[in-house]
């Protein structure tokens, strides 16, 4: 097999699955094959997609973060309450992003310095953030502010029928920035090196601790950003938002061909992961007979398929 194809087989197969899914849905459902469906995939999954970009970085380094859904919920309700109390949205955005960064740094420090399993610490972080969200307010709070009105009405028109809302644009921008950070910076290379072998990275003199903590910090900041996008998308803050979001986020990263054990992966894969997830969701919506429970089952099945595929590839490359 061509070495380029072999190296990027997970990525290529994700892209192939997306094209296959989108094509078959377009054949089955009238009106599926359109720019607006594609745009909707991005705007409906903006919150999920932004967390998936951060999750990709954490998983690159062999970590995992189960707290992102709760951070999204906390950020959304906290910023909604602050804005309703008369704070300026810009200042609120600054507060919640800093808070997210602090939260991630805290979890990263516990994981690295105290050598705790990432899933346990971030699961505790999930409890913490979720409870804090309900502490702020236990019900959905809508946001009324002129800036929010104009931002949520903002659309970029491409052609006659395709209007890209701000949430979709923010997701695309995050993916581009994530792509650059992951594949064109020292930080991104360090992440992959740590994920490949923390021992080797340490012996090479890479800043393992700082990089790992930075990955969790960046991820929680992105989750907070996703929470802000959620307030734009729904026009409100809700402490029960994003239950199970972290699982979908991990699923997207893995479907995108990133190795869950770390050390191997691609941000473009995550983009295709979002597209695959969104296509399944839209197809189920178009069908009307199927309900949302199927999304979970299909995603779990895809997840298993991809993990098995990756194992096969890793084994076949290890043999050479």
């Amino acid at each position, binding site marked *: 097999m061509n070495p380029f194809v072999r190296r990027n087989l997970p990525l290529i197969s994700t892209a192939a699955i997306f094209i296959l899914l989108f094509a078959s849905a377009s054949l089955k459902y009238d009106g599926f094959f359109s720019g607006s469906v594609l745009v909707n995939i991005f705007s409906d999954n903006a919150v999920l997609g932004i967390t998936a970009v951060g999750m990709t970085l954490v998983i690159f380094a062999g970590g*995992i973060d189960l707290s992102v859904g709760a951070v999204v919920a906390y950020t959304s309700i906290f910023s909604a309450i602050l804005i309703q109390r008369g704070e300026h949205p810009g200042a609120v955005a600054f507060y919640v992003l800093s808070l997210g960064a602090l939260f991630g740094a805290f979890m990263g420090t*516990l994981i690295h*310095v*105290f*050598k*705790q*399993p990432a*899933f*346990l*610490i971030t*699961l*505790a*972080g*999930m*409890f*913490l953030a*979720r*409870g*804090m969200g*309900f*502490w702020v307010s*236990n019900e959905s709070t809508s946001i009324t502010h002129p800036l929010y009105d104009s931002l949520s009405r903002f659309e970029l028109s491409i052609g006659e029928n395709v209007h890209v809302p701000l949430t979709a644009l923010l997701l695309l921008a995050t993916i581009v920035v994530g792509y650059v950070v992951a594949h064109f910076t020292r930080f991104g290379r360090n992440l992959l090196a740590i994920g490949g072998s923390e*021992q080797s990275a340490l012996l090479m003199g890479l800043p393992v601790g700082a990089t790992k903590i930075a990955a969790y910090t960046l991820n929680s900041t992105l989750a907070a950003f996703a929470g802000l996008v959620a307030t734009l998308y729904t026009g409100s803050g809700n*402490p029960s938002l994003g239950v*199970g979001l972290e*699982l979908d986020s*991990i*699923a997207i990263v*893995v479907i995108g061909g990133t190795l*869950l*054990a770390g050390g191997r992966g691609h941000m473009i894969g995550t983009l295709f992961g979002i597209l695959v997830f969104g296509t399944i969701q839209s197809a189920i919506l178009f069908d009307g007979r199927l*309900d*949302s*429970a*199927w*999304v*979970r*089952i299909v*995603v*779990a*099945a895809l*997840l*298993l398929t991809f*993990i*098995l595929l990756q*194992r096969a590839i890793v084994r076949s490359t290890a043999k050479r």
Partner: protein
Amino acid sequence: MIDYAIPQTPPPARSPLIWPLAGLGLLLVINVIINPAFLKISILDGHLYGLPIDILNQGSRGMLLALGMTLVIATGGVDLAVGSLMAVAGAVTSTLLVQHGASLPVAILAGVSVTALGGLLSGLMVSWLGLQPIVATLILMIAGRGVAQKITGGEVIVVQNPSFEFLGNGFVLGLPFSILLVGVFYLLAQLFLRRTAAGLFIEAVGDNEKAARFAGLSAAKVKALVYVFSGICAGVAGLLATSNIRAADPYRAGEMMELDAIFAVVVGGTALTGGRFLIAGAFVGALLLQTLTTTMYVVGVPPDVATVPKALLIIVVCVAQSDVTRGWLRGLFKRRAL
């Protein structure tokens, strides 16, 4: 990496149960200070009533999950699917009872069999396919909730069956039936694990899988079986939960219970890295968590917010138990001794 140093076995702790018991005691003392009637038990209609009895009854589900989770963690794995499997068991049994008119034993057996099958799937993914336990059980965690929702048709199924309600609300000899059931599970597990070589096998696989395999132990079988057992525990816990609220809720049944179970095990003195395990410790850990939850109810903290102190407790315990902190403390005491 090859470690050439001779592994040093840590000195045996005086009693691994002492820390969780001390934590539970401390929590009870705080509770009695806040509310002097906290430990009061009264007798009504021949049943014992009171907050401690309530803690035992409500805590029985966490204890069951912790029992299965202890064995899974002892083999070096983890089972994230138990919460979803609880929902699946509730969904299967209540649908059979309510919509298909099945008899109670058949419905219960079906519910627990399905979760045992779920455990078998996790076990096969871990042992046969060699997936990381977190990943394998994560798949089942995601799919499980979807399956539970499919079974009930996305609705909450109300169960009105006096015999079924007895599981989670009934009393035998003045004690809640659920806690007695947990006691039976505990005795059977202890007998099986400590009177046969099963417990040793589990510890051997968790301690050093390769060595266990070279010693002629089928590590794959041991691993697969602990997940099946965890699945069965989750199934029974799911039925207790369903019976307790007289309804099967595919969305919220067993929500976040996986963390409670893992935490109970960790507090109970079983290391997440596998090896030696202590079921009694996990039970004390589960009771500690339930006491904390009940405390929150009594103090008037809304249940949704009650996760905050729980999370803080988890973080404090993890940090306190870590080798890094122990090293620091040891250094501190050594310097003083000099």
